[in-house]
């Protein structure tokens, strides 16, 4: 009735709490690994996307090749990409997982950051120049802060999708909570799968909430908009 034991008949409950208690160390390690992969991938993605964004803003013609490349990466199936990189970096290297994860964030991060800088009203730039700000000062003290809301939106989307993709990295022996999910599926033992799945969802929601708070804290002017009397 079931194919080759991958999904065996479930004669076990969705969750067995004794297992959770017994394996709490393994679960904790999986969470830490999941978080580590997510943060590393995101950090690398942010650094690379910052460079790409700077290139696009400086040389507009670079917009097309950069967007095309990052879009292409984004369309690659993640399982295929992990599988292809495994022989290059070795199955057990963390970078085998981090590099593709970071690559996937680029399209979202670059698109949002560029949009952030392009959203800055020309009069604001004009005023900054007219007040005697140097271009470098203008970028750091005016343009960057004003691009932050867009950048944070990009980072939130990228973070949530990375948390999801990390689970897939389990196929190359990485993947934090993904490993719990896969091992549960393989053994037709639901508990690790349930734990892995629900914790990865919880992790995604938590990271999103934390980033939302950080964004609000970074952009106090965004909170207090109202339409005043003249």
């Amino acid at each position, binding site marked *: 009735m079931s194919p080759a034991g991958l999904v065996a008949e479930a004669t076990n409950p969705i969750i067995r709490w004794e297992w959770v208690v017994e394996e709490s160390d393994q679960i904790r390690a999986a969470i830490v690994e999941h978080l580590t992969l997510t943060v590393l991938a995101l950090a690398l993605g942010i650094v690379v996307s910052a460079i790409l964004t700077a290139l696009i803003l400086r040389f507009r013609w670079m917009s097309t090749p950069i967007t095309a490349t990052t879009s292409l990466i984004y369309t690659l199936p993640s399982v295929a990409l992990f599988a292809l990189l495994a022989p290059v970096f070795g199955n057990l290297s963390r970078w085998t997982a981090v590099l593709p994860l970071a690559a996937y964030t680029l399209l979202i991060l670059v698109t949002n950051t560029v949009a952030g800088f392009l959203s800055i*009203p020309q*009069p*604001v*730039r*004009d*005023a*900054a*120049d*007219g*007040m*005697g*700000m*140097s271009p470098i*000062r203008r970028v750091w003290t*005016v343009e960057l*802060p*004003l691009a932050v809301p867009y950048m944070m939106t990009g980072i939130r989307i990228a973070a949530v999708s990375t948390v999801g993709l990390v689970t897939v990295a389990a196929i190359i022996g990485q993947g934090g909570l993904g490993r719990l999910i896969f091992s549960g599926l393989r053994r037709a033992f639901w508990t690790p799968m349930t734990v892995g799945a629900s914790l990865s969802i919880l992790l995604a929601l938590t990271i999103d909430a934390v980033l939302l708070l950080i964004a609000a804290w970074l*952009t*106090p*002017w965004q909170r*207090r*908009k*109202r339409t*005043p*009397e*003249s």
Partner: protein
Amino acid sequence: MAGRWVNDVAIRLTDVTKTFDGSSGAAVDQLSLDIEDGSIMALLGPSGCGKTTTLRMINRLIEPTSGRIEINGVDVMSRSPQELRRGIGYVIQQVGLFPHRTIRGNIATVPDMLGWDKGRVNDRVEELTTLVGLDHELLDRYPDELSGGQQQRVGVARALAADPPVLLMDEPFGAVDPIVRTRLQDELLDLQTKVRKTIVLVTHDVDEALRLADRIALMNVGGVVEQLATPDELMRSPANEFVERFVGDDRGLRRLALNMVGNLPFHQGPIVAHTAHLSEIEQVLAIESSDWLGVTNGERFAGWVTADEARATMATGGTLDDLEPRPPVAHVEPSDTLRAAMELIMVSNSSVAVIDDGGRFGGVVTLEDIRRSLAATGS
């Protein structure tokens, strides 16, 4: 042409030309202009006349192709653009406040860059807030929380922060509604009496230029000055057809907006003291050929009575005090424009407005007075 102002020229443009890349004609062509220290010069003209380009060459946001621009005798090209701009106030139509900085932070932009210490910056911000008529409570708000008019005041305060001798304003009141615009214009004039900056104002609005400027450079497409004149000269004797068309058919009416009631020759009108006798009353009525009589009580204007009422009272042995004079429907102040006075007279459906000079009777204005004043200066 410079001769007259040679001693107190703040900004001098000599043969300034700007040709943009890929454009066949010049945006500004061989422009020479002297701007007197402490005066307001309006660069007026249709779009494409190079007025904004001219303004932006003064603070080097645009570099001239050729020619020379000096501020207080110093060639602007000899200074670094940043250093130069920190010494020139700059106000633009869309204000361009920094949305992520509080009002306080916005006003402090240039002093912060100049490295002023905190206390000095703070004092200056407070001072400017009062100067431009902003509520101090707004200082810790963000620009998006302010109205257009308030934002524009912040823009002016920010431009004045480091007390620059020169202020460049590019259509500063173009984005606010007409009522707020008029108020801001009044405030600017009021401010100017206190700070005496050399202001270069770009505008396409004839009325704004007439209201604000000491002198107007009316520019035409291609960056040439068609006429350089005081507002009154520009209205009275347009140099050519372009100027005539640009300032419009209602030049006479516009000139009314330039003259104040207080500048008219004093006109007593059919006015008598409340103690006046009949003979005196009849004499005034005859001279002024009026059916109405204004009654004063000391320095105050008490109101109007009709000639018939006055005669009737006198005939029964009474005095003007026995009548109850009607309060005037139209009264103006010496600082009001002739245009305002005329409008008031028309709207109130009377023929005369009483001048109220701080509670004292200051004479009357009739339509005839207004007409005569235009003829007198309009040689």
